[in-house]
């Protein structure tokens, strides 16, 4: 039985370890789930692909959940995806119901995650069949669609998002040109002939840049100890979950949908879910310590992870920065994400889906241990955490190809990430540009070569045209709405 292969120790053991690691990173404010995934990838180089992907899944789901723990107790989100969970989680905590908030959080994360995974399992294969109809023209627009969505949905200025994506695309042109074999922007450096390696770049952008940021900020990681001892009351937890079952389902569906949009991750999902709940429920307690305010964002942020895997697996289009790293890792394992993966690596996809379900089941005991151990995590010194992250960044980027050059690549991207953070330029579009660069360029050029330089077929085929219209809408509608709303005011 192929799916049961994941229960063998060579997959299960790394999965469990990664989940503990995810809890640890997620629970420490300032360290993100993306960073956790970027740091764990080097450890997976020498494992079989399913073990590596299991670790990535384990880390991402648990880190997103664990981010809600400091959000509830300390009013500091462990990861950006926990921003919305602060509002009511912390208020409940102030009322002495912190343990209830966290137990709800844990079960809603697992259930929301499960709904997201079930949708992933059911939607991906038929979508992949449809994607088989895509040619160079459609893949070009699909790449552009992903990049524009990432730019529009990422926090901050849309223009800066688009600029970040363009810079990512430009970096992806470094290396030997596939069509002509001519080295571009390599400056006679042999290590650049293959292009800029994804993984060191991502470790730098998400790992080292965070260290730089933390080390130049006044705020420190060390926080006050948690006063409340967690006493789980399962009966009360289930009673609340049953009472707010529609909120949970709604949150999970919203989360999965938002996650499936390229560029929008768990953080956007959590806020949208919270906002929808506010409108739908008309609960006046929302924001003042309402259970609904915990259920909605926590079910959405974990469900979003399942959603992000849909475009990643089906089209090879990252749903967020985590899946962008995953795509880089999959290429490293020799896998080619896209519709063909469902036929060429059917066993792996089945195992991947099994792992995703397994993670939701394991999340409950491991998450509970995480809640218990939380007070230990926050007592860790900044110096230790940051030193450990730096050491992991150095060795992790070296380990890919045993290349010191990759360490320098990681360093340069660390500086870029730091500068981007300071200038409020979103990082995710750059990563997407870096990942999608080759796809976008190759499909554009092959399409133009096929048509002898005629661009018209890019706009006349039905799916191409639909995608083009969608891109135009994505780029035009938000500023237009802004202008119109200003005029109204």
């Amino acid at each position, binding site marked *: 039985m192929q799916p049961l292969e994941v229960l063998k120790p060579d997959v299960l053991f790394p999965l469990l370890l990664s989940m503990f690691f995810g809890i640890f990173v997620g629970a420490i404010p300032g360290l993100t789930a993306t960073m956790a995934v970027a740091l764990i990838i080097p450890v997976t180089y020498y494992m079989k692909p399913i073990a590596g992907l299991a670790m990535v899944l384990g880390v991402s789901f648990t880190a997103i959940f664990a981010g809600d723990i400091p959000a509830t107790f300390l009013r500091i989100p462990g990861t950006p995806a926990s921003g919305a969970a602060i509002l009511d989680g912390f208020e409940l905590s102030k009322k002495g119901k912190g343990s209830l908030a966290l137990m709800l959080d844990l079960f809603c994360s697992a259930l929301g995650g499960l709904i997201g995974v079930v949708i992933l399992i059911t939607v991906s294969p038929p979508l992949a069949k449809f994607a088989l109809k895509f040619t160079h023209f459609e893949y070009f627009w699909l790449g552009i669609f992903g990049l524009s969505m990432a730019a529009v949905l990422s926090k901050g200025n849309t223009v800066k998002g688009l600029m970040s994506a363009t810079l990512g695309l*430009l970096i992806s042109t470094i290396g030997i040109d596939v069509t002509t074999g001519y080295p571009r922007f390599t400056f006679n450096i042999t290590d650049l002939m293959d292009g800029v390696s994804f993984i060191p770049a991502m470790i730098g952008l998400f790992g080292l840049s965070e260290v730089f940021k933390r*080390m*130049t900020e006044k705020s420190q990681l060390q926080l006050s100890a948690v006063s409340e001892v967690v006493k789980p009351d399962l009966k009360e937890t289930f009673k609340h979950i049953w009472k707010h079952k529609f909120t949970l389902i709604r949150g999970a569906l919203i989360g999965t949908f938002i996650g499936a949009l390229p560029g929008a991750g768990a953080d956007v999902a959590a806020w949208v879910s919270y906002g929808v709940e506010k409108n739908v429920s008309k609960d006046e307690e929302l924001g003042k310590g309402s259970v609904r305010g915990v259920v909605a964002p926590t079910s959405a942020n974990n469900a979003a992870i399942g959603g992000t895997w849909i475009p990643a697996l089906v089209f090879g289009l990252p749903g967020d920065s985590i899946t962008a790293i995953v795509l880089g890792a999959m290429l490293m394992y020799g896998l080619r994400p896209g519709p063909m993966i469902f036929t060429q690596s059917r066993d792996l996809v089945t195992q991947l889906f099994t792992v995703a379900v397994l993670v939701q089941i394991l999340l409950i005991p491991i998450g509970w241990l995480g809640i218990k151990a939380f007070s230990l995590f926050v007592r860790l010194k900044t110096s230790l955490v940051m030193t450990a992250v730096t050491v992991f960044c150095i060795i992790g980027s070296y*380990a890919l190809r045993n290349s010191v050059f990759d360490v320098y690549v990681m360093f340069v991207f660390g500086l870029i990430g730091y500068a981007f953070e*300071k200038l409020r330029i979103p990082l995710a579009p750059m990563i997407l540009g870096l990942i999608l660069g080759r796809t976008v360029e190759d499909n554009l050029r092959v399409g133009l070569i096929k048509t*002898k330089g005629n661009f018209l077929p890019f706009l006349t085929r039905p799916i191409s045209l639909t995608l083009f219209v969608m891109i135009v809408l994505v780029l035009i509608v938000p500023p237009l709405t802004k202008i119109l709303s200003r005029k109204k005011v």
Partner: protein
Amino acid sequence: MSVADLILGFVLVFISFFVLLYSRKFPHFVVRGVRLPGPSFFPRILAVLLLIFAAYIFVEQFLLRKRRVSQEKHRTEAKSLLNLLWISFMVLFAFPLANLIGTFIALTGMSFLLMVVLRSKWYESLILSFSVALVVYIIFGVIFKIPLPEGIIFTKLR
């Protein structure tokens, strides 16, 4: 006016001009007399896009918000700068040092110094840096058998 954004605009202009000029030496891609998109085609499109973004930033800074005074004060303390430099030093010199004295000792030493710079007590730093280096060495060097530098000194001594 945000100085940082202005600098960003100039950086974009520099990058795009560099790409446009540098890509001029890329060969043309001609098949049966027809000139098709070659190696310079895509980078040039991107360079033009970057120029447009730069122009947008300049227009925004000079025309739309000319009276806006930046409220952001990027005050970097000397200590923060020292931390930044020390981490940069650690990243850049970790492997040259590891090639000399071995990965384990290099990582322990550098982690120790970084922790001391970050105001940890020396004995605490020593124990923790040793533990971090040991965990990393076991994961990458022992379990995954990645050839981490053993160091010239120790190789010669052996």
